[in-house]
């Protein structure tokens, strides 16, 4: 019975409803690379995003509307203009950039305080694991103070967008959480 309903909702969702997902993070963390890894499954050459990239992709019968917003200091203030109706936030951290870990933590917590994002799930990618000297996921989690987060589904996944590791695992988790929460 429950199964029947959920598959019906699934179908309704798949055709009508798009899920809005934001990819945020400091500049150079690998947001754009992750976006296109998700969409076309390849590594593209990127340059700093002035503004945003938006792509629609299907993932497990769901239509995802994925927004990759630029991470430069000048663009961060505009993030909030795109918060409305966001199902989930993917926060990407450059695990090798130890110096700016505190900045990343600050931006993350500031963002999560926004009213419009109270119900969104959070997935953190500890990215660039392929590079030497990258912090592990648990270390990044500690630096970002993720344990402090209350009333929110969150997860951190070690990833390498270049090698394509961890991305789908993270997204799988995210989709499950969204389905659960929105049903």
């Amino acid at each position: 019975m429950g199964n029947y309903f959920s598959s019906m909702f699934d179908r309704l969702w798949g055709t009508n409803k798009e899920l809005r997902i934001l990819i945020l993070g400091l500049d150079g963390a690998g947001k754009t690379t992750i976006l296109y890894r998700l969409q076309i499954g390849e590594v593209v050459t990127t340059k700093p995003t002035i503004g945003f990239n938006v792509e629609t992709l299907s993932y497990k019968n769901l239509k995802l509307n994925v927004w990759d917003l630029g991470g430069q200091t000048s663009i961060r203030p505009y993030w909030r203009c795109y918060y409305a109706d966001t199902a989930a936030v993917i926060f990407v951290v450059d695990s090798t950039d130890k110096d700016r870990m505190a900045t990343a933590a600050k931006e993350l917590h500031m963002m999560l305080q926004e009213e419009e994002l109270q119900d969104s799930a959070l997935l953190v990618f500890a990215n660039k694991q392929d590079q030497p000297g990258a912090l592990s996921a648990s270390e990044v989690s500690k630096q970002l103070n993720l344990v402090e987060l209350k009333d929110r589904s969150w997860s951190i996944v070690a990833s390498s967008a270049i090698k394509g590791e961890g991305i789908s695992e993270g997204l799988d988790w995210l989709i499950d959480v969204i389905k659960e929460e929105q049903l």
Partner: protein
Amino acid sequence: MSAQTYKKFENAGSTDLPDKMTIYQDCMNKFNESPISPKRCRILISRLLRLLLNGETFPETEATALFFSISKLFQHPNDSLRQMVYLAIKELSGMSEDVLMATSSIMKDIQNGSDLVKPNAIRSLAYVLDESTAFSAERLLKSAVVSKQPSVSSAALITSLNLLPISETTIKRFANEAQEAIGDLKQFPHSSGANSEYYPNSTFTTQYHALGLVYQLKKNDKMALLKLVKQLSDNGNLLKNQMAKVQLVKLVNDLVNRDNQLFPQFQPILFNWLSNKFESVQIETAKLITSFASSHKNARLVSPDLFASTISTLQGLLTVPRVTSRFAALRILNKISMTSPEKIVICNPELESLINDSNRNISTYAITTLLKTGTAKNISSLISTITKFIHDVSDDFKIIIVDAVRTLSLNFPQEWKSIVKFLIDVLKNSEGGLTFKNSIIEAIFDIVSFVPQSKEVVLENLCDFIEDCEYNEILVRVLHLLGKEGPFTSKPSLYVRHIYNRVVLENSIIRSAAVVALSKFALTKNDSTLKSSIISLLKRISNDQDDEVRDRATIALKLIDFTSADDENSLIAHDLLQSKKFYDLPSLENKLSAYLSSNTDSFSTPFDSASVRKFTEDEVKAMDLKRKQEQVFNNTSEGSRETPIDMSLESTTSIKEQRLDTETYHGASLDQHQEELVATKYADELMNVEEFKDFGSLINSSKIISLTEQEAEFVVSGVKHIFKKHVVFQFNIKNTLTDVALDNVAVVCTSEDAESSKLNETFTLPIDRLMPSIELQCYVAFEKDSDVVMEGFLNNLVFTTRELNPDTQEPYEDDEGFQDEYEIDPIYLNAGDYIESSFIGDFESAFDELPNEEIAVYNIQEDISLQEVIDKLVVNTSCLPLSNTQFAPNDSNSHTLKLFGKSALNGMKVALLIKMIKSSKGIVIKAQGRAEDEELCSDLVNGLM
């Protein structure tokens, strides 16, 4: 169903603007929906654009919110929607600061978008990029410029042009690509559809855009531009696009205006272009040649052949079927007619047939042109043609025609009879509003004041006219004129009757004006009966029911009473009834407003009207005539001042384009009125300086002379002030440095001939401290030992430079600065400084009557035109050129200049008759001067150059 919703949305045909807030709300709702409906969004954006294009704006917060919601539409891949999004971004870019957020998305479309959206994406790029982000678009733009798709290439070229003021270094790197695009004949992608035979393969507009960009990139490199013109004109078929060809003509125009010596080498090309297959190219070329030739120093560079074929090209264009071409050609001819009407007389038959053109703009232009080319012979026939025509055009055109007739009357004073007849006829018989009637009255007044022999006829006709005139304003003006001129005519009593009729029949405004006019007749010489009848009329009026009328009549009676007495009061009363002096209005205005705003002693002291300069009637007329002459002249020189290449390409509403415009536009020079105000201001400032109070009243001030280049570190201009026994040089010094202040700034003037100098320097008033970008005055005063002293002075600016502390903008305390000198141009006192221009109606008889004569002959070896000599003579002598002799005909080698003025010291009249002959060796000038004052006469004649 979809058709219905579409209809409902559009509400087609309605001309009302949709409500701003409804649109805003709809946009916010629909654009943030998920999923979005592309069709609805497109319609919404089109309505939003309609609002914006009608001039509506949104406050910044709303505009920002709109922009962000529109930016969310990038998620939808629909091409048509994307095009609308780009249009909206362009419009909103002026209102919202945040458009840079669209940058990445735009760039993605430029790279991977469909051919449909690519051009739109490229065009919107110029609105979102700034100096720091422009470089990131370099590669994209460059490849778009060389794209085979004409619309993509055009868009990229225009965007580059718009980005030029924002990031010059980036765009400069496209020079080669843009150059290539000029020659590249790009075709639209081949379409196999049924329509393909109806559409051209290409319009080649890309050539135009590429040429525009290349010009902007190379505009400072004369050699490169020359090469470009050569390359494009040698291969006549390279440029296919009409606009590109016109652009090329403009480019040549720019080149020859910068360096007129280049003109001869372009002549063969210009010859060719005059017979180009495009009319617009012919017109542009004709415009280039005629406006170039209208400048006197260039005129001799234009070969007579070229000019003749220009005129015949224009003549041919007057009969083409296209209205715009006819109009443009006519406009050029009209411009020529203002300075050298004799050159276009051959076009008269065509012009005459254009009088009946169905387009009113053309017919009016044709008439005004004909009026200028009119010779003494055909004026009367012309005027009868216009008389028929003028009754069936609108007021605006009537005014233009009347103005043209008015200039005609100044040029052909001897033709006043037919002109007056025409003017009176339209005044009486034609329908028209106040402005039109007023312009006729202006014209008639001009004739009265500058053609004295017409006076009585005009006045009689005006008397007739006021019997039946519906406009108070005009009646009052006519009554004033009657009062001013009537008493000096042969039959003053005639006018009295007409004026008194007004008192009986009209309203109080006119009655009071009539009273003033009447009272002036009481002073008519040697006619005691007239005087007594005026008194009895005025007595009757002093029982009028209106206060103002009564008051005026009473005071007039009192004043008339005073005049019969033989004392001091009589003079004052005389002056009040019929004043011979007129206030200098700009100065009066200035002083009055200063008086009102000072308010320190709450008006306990009365306004000092004696401090305002006054002019006699002749002086007023002189200034008036001068102004009118200058007006004509400004109209003619306007053509050459047009911006050489007009770069307003497609999006005219763009803010950035305006930025480009303001950079290329150089502010116009001070206009006449402002110049007068400045002169008054200087005189006032001078008189407020304690040290000059002993010098007595200011007799004359020269125009402002610049003594340095405008780009110099210290910009100095000078004014010469003449007092009875003193001369004061005023130096306006501007410090254009940003980080240095000048202390103790003074000017050291050394006489060119120190031994025999007749001027003794009495003192200098230095400037204590001159801060950056401030202009202050330094005065140097001299005592002169005779009335008229002519001398030259070498000038040196001396000062102490003090470096400024950038934080406080104060000089450093411990820095003592160092002494420095700066040489500026010499200043010359010449006879003209003692002369004021003055008007005389009949130059010849005045000239013959003056007692003292002096003749001098000059030889000028330099190769300059007669007009340049005339301009110089007019400035040097400060006299008023009369009978329109300040314009030399271009094709003649001789000219006679008539100048009239009077001494500023004692009002003695002086007249100059200067004959010039130009030969291959130079110009010979014979100046014949006659004056009341012998010394003045010889000084002036011998110090002409």
